[in-house]
């Protein structure tokens, strides 16, 4: 896949990077800062001519008038070094006319971010940008100018100039690196879209969970009740048939079949959504999973009441998956689940005394868990050296819980 930002272009082979348009795009990106240089020079000239107070007024006026157009320019210029579109986060005014426009702008946090970033660009970024370009090209250009220097001797100075020419490609690296870093910063302030993606993923997970709860309830109220009733009727029928008769044998077989189906359905429903989690919270659900484990597992979970549903369900899946791995692969003799709420974050740790060597790359289970935890804004860490022990730890923020 071709790179989409100057930073990712940097990591490609030098021949590919240097022949691509990325060094030139990065250079152009940084040189656009010259616009800010012009504004700042203008303000300084006013200070010289008409005094500092007037210059201060001019500076404030410049930020107020040029702030929003400058931010728009920043968003446009991002395209030079970052192909992903930078969405304009500003709200649309509800009506036409300057009054509605002002009201919307004043209340929009994006306006204040735009103005703040423009101030930053005027005060610092422009000279850093231009300085970077100057610094990166200074030595090569100096060397290349050797033949033009009064002291330049013909053969040597041409050799020196050739050396300078060969050094030019090297300057592409710092330029592209700073352009990429600056673009990241710009995007974070002026086009913050990533947070929304995470939020929408969390909404999606919530929707999935709601759907699973619904399926669980439908199965419970429908198929499961019918199967219990069926099994009961078959049990009653057995009582009325003469023992040992062919009919009794048939009904007995059907009865056993119904009971097996019921047991399977029960396990299936548990997998879809653990009822005890909804009813009694994380501690009870963890006790339940641990109780099912063939390897003895101690549970030390102490939580103050209920946590946000997303945190509970995420932690529950982590513990379930860890329990499954513990039973299947670890060879452990004992396990421990530890859970606490600390500084507004749920910390769960699952340890065992097994053989270790768990690899998140090998099985999709652990990688899937990490994804789930990430959606809940959490962090998962795994320590599993060969020879053990294994410890899986997750931290999931629970804002508002103490």
């Amino acid at each position, binding site marked *: 896949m071709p790179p989409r930002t100057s930073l990712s272009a940097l990591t490609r082979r030098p021949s590919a990077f240097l022949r691509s348009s990325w060094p030139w795009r990065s250079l152009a990106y940084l040189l656009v800062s010259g616009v800010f240089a012009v504004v700042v020079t203008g303000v300084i000239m006013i200070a010289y001519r008409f005094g500092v107070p007037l210059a201060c007024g001019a500076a404030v006026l410049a930020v107020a008038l040029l702030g929003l157009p400058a931010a728009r320019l920043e968003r446009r210029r991002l395209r030079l070094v970052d192909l992903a579109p930078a969405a304009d986060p500003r709200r649309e005014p509800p009506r036409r006319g300057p009054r509605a426009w002002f009201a919307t702008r004043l209340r929009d946090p994006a306006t204040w971010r735009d103005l703040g970033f423009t101030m930053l660009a005027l005060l610092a970024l422009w000279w850093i940008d231009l300085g970077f370009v100057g610094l990166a090209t200074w030595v090569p250009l100096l060397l290349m100018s050797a033949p033009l220097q009064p002291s330049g001797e013909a053969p040597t100075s041409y050799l020196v100039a050739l050396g300078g020419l060969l050094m030019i490609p090297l300057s592409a690296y710092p330029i592209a690196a700073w352009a990429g870093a600056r673009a990241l910063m710009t995007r974070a302030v002026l086009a913050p879209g990533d947070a929304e993606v995470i939020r929408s993923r969390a909404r999606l997970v919530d929707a999935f969970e709601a759907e699973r709860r619904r399926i669980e309830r439908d199965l419970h109220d429908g198929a499961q*009740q019918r199967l*219990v*009733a069926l099994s*009961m009727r078959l*049990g*009653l029928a057995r009582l009325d048939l003469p023992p040992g008769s062919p009919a009794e044998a048939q009904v007995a077989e059907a*009865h056993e079949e119904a*009971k097996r189906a*019921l047991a399977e359905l029960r396990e299936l429903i548990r997998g879809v959504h653990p009822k*005890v989690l909804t009813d009694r919270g994380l501690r009870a659900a963890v006790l339940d999973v641990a109780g099912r484990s063939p390897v003895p597992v101690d549970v030390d979970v102490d939580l103050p009441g209920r946590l946000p549903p997303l945190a509970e369900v995420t932690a529950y899946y982590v513990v379930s998956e860890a329990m499954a791995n513990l039973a299947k692969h670890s060879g452990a003799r004992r396990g421990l689940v530890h859970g606490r709420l600390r500084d507004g974050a749920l910390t769960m740790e699952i340890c065992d005394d097994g053989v270790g060597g768990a690899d998140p790359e090998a099985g999709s289970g652990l990688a899937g868990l990490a994804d789930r935890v990430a959606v809940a804004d959490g962090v998962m860490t795994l320590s599993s050296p060969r020879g053990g022990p294994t410890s899986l730890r997750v931290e999931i923020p629970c804002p508002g819980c103490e």
Partner: protein
Amino acid sequence: MPGLRIVLAEDAVLLREGLVGLLDRFGHQVVASIGDAEALITAVREHEPDIVVADVRMPPGYSDEGLRAALALRAERPGLAVLVLSQYVEQTYAAELLDGGGSGGIGYLLKDRVGDVSEFAGAVERVAAGHTVVDPEVVRQLLGRRRDPLARLTPREREVLGLVAEGRSNAAIARTLVVTEAAVSKHIAGILAKLDLPPAADDHRRVLAVLAYLRG
């Protein structure tokens, strides 16, 4: 056992009707069958039954209203026998029920067990008679949790322990395992000694002691 007067709380109509038929088949009388937890409390006050059989999950919230109603009823009249049916085995529910106090019989069974009609009717009768009946699945989970001292039990003693937790008397255990009652008494004495529990004659207390130990 003479016919019991039973209040039945189960929201699924199909199952409720089936259970009424089943209990009737074994000579018991369902004096009230209702579909939600609030009606359960009213019905018990009105009919003063020998035993209440209630589903954990019932309207209006479809959460654990049945269990809560059962606990409330036990708090109100400690001698009331209560058998709670659950779609899943939840140690938490079983523990809440057993820790709830009261002197009457108490039972916690997986709903699937109603398929084994004779055993289910037997469980109802045992609970009504003041015994404790706990689903084998709960016992199995508890046995899985507390391994260390239980490792000292012989396989036969574990088997006996499971049956004790189901609230069976020595005679019933002897019949199930096809051994003499004396042998069962010996096993039970061995179990209680190995688990450092005081010997208890009363079946009900014996079961509770063992369960309390297992939950530890």
